[in-house]
């Protein structure tokens, strides 16, 4: 007579009884970790600009987004449609994306990941800082009466050319960096 694992008298029965039950597919028995930030909640809070950044604990950034949004609306309403009318949707959408990415970065930091490397790769370019300086100088010159910024409005398609060229340049650089194997 042979012993069976289903036989309570069998020597294999205690080991089979103490083994954990198999998990359904797609689940693991890794410990549950509650992440500190919810990217979805951060994005939802950012529907009011700056609130998602407050949730992420980045107060200075929250003020920057809030005042950029309010300032763009104020300046558009006071007759400076260019470039501030374009900035309103840009600031609003960028604020939501920034809150989402900020929450993901906070979670990555919590898990000990490389949050810094993944936080804002697009900021690794002088274009962002240069654009801020250029915008500030143009508005300042306009405020001082040394430049009529409304006359620049006819040149706005040049902005599209510059942004398009920047994307093309970035794509070529990324392809070059990956040895030409990237999609």
């Amino acid at each position, binding site marked *: 007579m042979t012993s069976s694992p289903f036989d309570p008298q069998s020597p294999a029965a205690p080991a089979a009884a103490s083994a954990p039950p198999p998990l359904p597919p797609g689940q693991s028995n890794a410990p549950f970790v509650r992440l500190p930030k919810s990217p979805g909640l951060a994005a939802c809070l950012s529907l009011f600009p700056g609130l998602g950044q407050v949730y992420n604990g980045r*107060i*200075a*950034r929250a*003020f*920057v987004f809030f005042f950029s949004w309010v*300032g763009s609306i104020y300046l558009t309403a006071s007759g400076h449609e260019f470039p501030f009318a374009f900035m309103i949707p840009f600031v609003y959408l960028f604020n939501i994306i920034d809150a989402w990415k900020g929450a993901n970065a906070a979670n990555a930091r919590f898990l000990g990941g490389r949050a*810094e*490397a993944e936080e804002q790769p697009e*900021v*690794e*370019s*002088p274009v*962002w*800082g*240069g*654009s*801020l*300086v*250029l*915008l*500030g*100088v*143009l*508005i*300042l010159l306009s*405020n*001082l009466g040394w430049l009529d910024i409304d006359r620049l409005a006819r040149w706005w398609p040049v902005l599209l050319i510059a942004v398009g060229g920047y994307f093309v340049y970035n794509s070529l650089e990324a392809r070059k960096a990956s040895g030409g194997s990237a999609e």
Partner: protein
Amino acid sequence: MTRSAFSPEGVTFGVCLVALGVLGTLANLGKLELLPLLRTYWPLSLVLWGVLELADLTIRRSSSGRS
């Protein structure tokens, strides 16, 4: 990429608050008109922010050995 030496938007926000406090105090003392000054010179905050972003990028690139 190396970690930032400082937060550009944090420094900009702090400097703007200090400047606002100083200008507000001077305005309360009757030394200057606050609102016309702010209306004219607020873009300096954008310039400062941009310069600090560029400085931060330069520091990170130099510390990570990139040119």
